[in-house]
């Protein structure tokens, strides 16, 4: 297989932010996730929950709620502004100030005509959704107290608003309040604390369901304004509620980390009187659950422990496969680490700064499996802070280690580094070509002479880098009309070919000498999660979000024989059952038939010269191969060699001196920096 020296890196202090809001779009099957730092991510629910788009946030910006209106996504935050997002180019389109103080809730009606926002000053403001913008229409009657949550009746004629100690039901046309429903405070010591109605849901039959800070889920009748039933599900707050499309299932998220499901079923078999009954409890979170959403076959929840948990509902799934297992999404499906292969440097991308580290050196005899003593420790060479409030969208370091580029939502910065002995000096390239205003993805060519940046309208701009600065060379334009933003770029070793993949599953290959499209890879149903161009054979190796692999020969403009063999034979069952996507593809320069890939829990080397594993063969056969004698090993080995020593891998890259760098981020280290969880009393502790 090959022997590699592995640098095990744990000094990337990657810290994700907690999830604040979820919004599901039933037709597109997209889930929008808003985080506490203002970033919004779009996950494709039917494509293995692949993280398609990331819109970075800003400093001092928090999102409180998200809402889909048709195909458009709106969010509102405590800074009092309503933001609409441009999902094609992955950035914020515009912001409108609501002029009501901090906005706590935003929701659109089912007809897609109006948007209601609940503000700090007690008003529910109605905005008309026009073609290009939203416009303020009117206020409903102003109330005394903040409005924490809103819910439209499916007909669009009434709105329920959850406030402090009460729920108000408004008639949208007149703007007056129909009912004022008083919510009980808790018993005992919590009687002095006001009860906050954190979320409300309005059903089409007139039932209003509310979750409050006492830990009760209450069902109210809006005709009479009285309580139907109340369920006590927890001792702390019920923070989020979500009802399914056909209104027969409700999920509630609590501060303890439990997600409780209620179903509208008849208590006695074959009788018609249905009521809301508590059915399941899911305990998949350690910290507060601040957002829940019910999609057709699963319950998605997210909270302060920064994980997105997808729990399939087994009564809605016909076939029990790997898709019906619990899934937790921890890390982003993009690379936050870029390596300067020839210089032994790594660039870590944090939200508001970049760190450049030099790897340490080891000494001692190389024995496989042994850890070597360190001669020189890894050291941080550069800490680059971003000016302004925006977060970094993408960053890259050139293979020679002399150029660093990063981009935020509004600007791009390029820096030149000089290393003399132990000092690093950095100069900012101030005169950048005007086309380099902002980039969705950045990539340096393998000889560090060119920088590729993908921007709006799916264009890739090429600039040449030299001692004197950078000059605009040309633009690579795709043939088809798709303008979706590009999320992956790959350049070939010899500098002739360039590949780009966008969110519409299109992969274009460009000829860099003519700067025109050379060919387009046939569109596959799943998004590309990682791709790379082989240094010698110039084959484009792509791995998709559903774990399918393709190898496309650029020069011959068709799939390679090995790729066709893989499809005929099919991949092993265990390969399909992995639930984290592959985020990096590398090639071993010493052995041209080896492809190195990794996902969050494994590192795999695919040897294209060896036979593919059949259905019955053991997939993880490294240990068994070790126990066999030399002669038998060859006959039993197959192409997929998986190493599971490293866990919670953020990135694996191959340096030019044949050493692998594995950047790990243990989840317990992330847990140490999270906010405090609720104290839970367990038996015998």
């Amino acid at each position, binding site marked *: 297989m090959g022997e590699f020296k592995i640098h095990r890196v744990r000094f990337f202090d990657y810290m994700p932010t907690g999830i604040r809001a979820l919004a599901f779009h039933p037709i597109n099957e997209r889930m929008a996730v808003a985080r506490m730092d203002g970033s919004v991510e779009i996950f494709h629910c039917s494509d293995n929950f692949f993280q398609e788009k990331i819109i970075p946030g800003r400093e001092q910006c928090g999102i409180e709620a998200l809402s889909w209106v048709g195909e458009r996504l709106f969010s509102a935050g405590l800074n009092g502004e309503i933001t609409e997002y441009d999902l094609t180019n992955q950035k914020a389109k515009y912001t409108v100030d609501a002029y009501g103080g901090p906005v*706590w809730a935003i929701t659109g009606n089912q007809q897609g005509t109006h948007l209601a926002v609940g503000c700090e000053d007690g008003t529910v403001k109605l905005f008309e959704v026009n073609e290009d913008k939203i416009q303020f229409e009117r206020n409903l009657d102003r109330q005394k107290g903040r409005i924490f949550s809103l819910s439209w009746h499916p007909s669009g004629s009434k709105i329920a608003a959850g406030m402090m100690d009460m729920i108000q039901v408004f008639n949208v046309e007149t703007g007056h309040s129909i009912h004022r429903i008083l919510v009980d405070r808790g018993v005992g010591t919590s009687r002095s604390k006001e009860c*906050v109605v954190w979320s409300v849901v309005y059903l089409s039959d007139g039932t209003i369901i509310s979750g409050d800070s006492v830990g009760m889920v209450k069902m109210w009748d809006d005709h009479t304004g009285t309580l139907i039933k109340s369920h006590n599900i927890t001792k702390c*707050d019920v923070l989020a509620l979500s009802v399914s499309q056909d209104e027969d299932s409700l999920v509630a998220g609590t501060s303890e980390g439990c997600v409780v499901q209620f179903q509208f079923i008849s208590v006695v078999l074959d009788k018609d009187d249905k009521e809301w009954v508590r059915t399941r409890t899911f305990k998949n979170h350690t910290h507060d659950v601040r957002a829940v959403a019910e999609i057709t076959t699963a319950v998605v929840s997210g909270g302060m422990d920064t994980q997105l948990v997808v729990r399939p509902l087994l009564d809605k799934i016909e076939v029990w496969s790997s898709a019906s297992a619990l899934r937790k999404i921890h890390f982003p499906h993009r690379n936050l680490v870029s390596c300067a292969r020839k210089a032994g440097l790594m660039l870590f991308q944090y939200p508001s700064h970049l760190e450049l580290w030099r790897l340490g050196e080891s000494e001692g005899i190389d024995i496989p499996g042994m850890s070597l003593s360190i001669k020189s420790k890894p050291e941080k060479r550069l800490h680059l802070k971003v000016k302004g409030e925006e977060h970094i969208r993408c960053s890259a370091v050139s293979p020679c280690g002399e150029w660093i580029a990063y981009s935020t939502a509004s600007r791009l910065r390029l820096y030149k580094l000089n290393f003399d002995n132990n000092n690093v000096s950095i100069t900012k390239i101030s005169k950048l070509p005007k086309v380099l205003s902002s980039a969705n993805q950045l990539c340096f060519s393998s000889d560090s002479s060119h920088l590729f940046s993908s921007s709006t309208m799916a264009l890739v701009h090429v600039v040449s880098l030299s001692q004197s600065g950078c000059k605009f060379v040309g633009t690579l334009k795709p043939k088809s009309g798709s303008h979706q933003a590009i999320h992956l770029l790959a350049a070939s070793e010899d500098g002739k070919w360039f590949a780009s993949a966008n969110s519409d599953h299109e992969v274009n290959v460009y000829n860099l000498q003519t700067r025109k499209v050379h060919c387009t890879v046939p569109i596959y149903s799943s998004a590309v999660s990682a791709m790379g161009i082989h240094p010698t054979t110039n084959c484009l190796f792509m791995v998709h979000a559903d774990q399918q692999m393709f190898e496309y020969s650029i020069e011959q403009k068709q799939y390679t024989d090995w790729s066709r063999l893989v499809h005929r034979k099919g991949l092993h069952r265990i390969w399909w059952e992995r639930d984290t996507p592959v985020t990096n593809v590398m090639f071993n320069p010493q052995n041209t038939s080896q492809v190195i890939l990794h996902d969050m829990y494994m590192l795999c080397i695919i040897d294209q010269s060896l036979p593919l594993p059949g259905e019955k063969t053991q997939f993880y056969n490294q240990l068994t191969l070790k126990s066999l004698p030399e002669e038998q090993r060859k006959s039993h080995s197959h192409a997929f060699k998986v190493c599971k020593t490293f866990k919670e891998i953020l990135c694996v890259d191959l340096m030019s001196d044949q050493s692998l760098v594995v950047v790990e981020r243990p989840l317990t280290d992330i847990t*140490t920096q999270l906010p*405090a969880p609720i104290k839970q009393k367990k038996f015998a502790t």
Partner: protein
Amino acid sequence: MSKLTQTQYESSDDELPEEVAFDESKTAALKSVKDALESARREKNILKEKRRKRQLLFQEQKKRKCLPEDLLEEFDALPQKQPMTKDNNNKDEEATEEAKKMVPKSLQDSYSVVRLKDESAAKTMQQSAMDFINSRLYGPGTKRTTNAEHLSLQKKRGLNQGAAVEFVNKKWGADHKVKAEKSNKRFIQKQKLVSS
């Protein structure tokens, strides 16, 4: 004591008091009055002198701060004129340059310059909203524990049971260890005192 009373005590009680001429006492009284007046006048003069000197000093300082008189006259004349000629422009620039050189702007230590844009009401409202959420979720009345305790509990009740994270991982609970060491030292010292 005055001369008059002195002679009174020296002589006996039988004798008649001495005669003091009216003129003497008159002159003495007048003299004392004159003296008082004199001293008052002197004091006034001293104060006047002081004030005058201070006034001069201030005037000199002001002169030093101010622009030369001809420029001041120029400034007085300028607002009356309409479009300025080139000469005036040059003079103006010179004046502003000199002004920049001569006027050192200094603020007291406790003052700072802040833009109205930064200290807007929106930010304070946002801050108060965030404080409200924090106090409801993490403030008094909520039963919160630390991440270390949470992880330790999981370890105790989990599949692979192990010690609490503070003991396994050196980084956790470093401050607890320091406190424990300090209290140990104190205890030992106390014990020594008691036994010795």
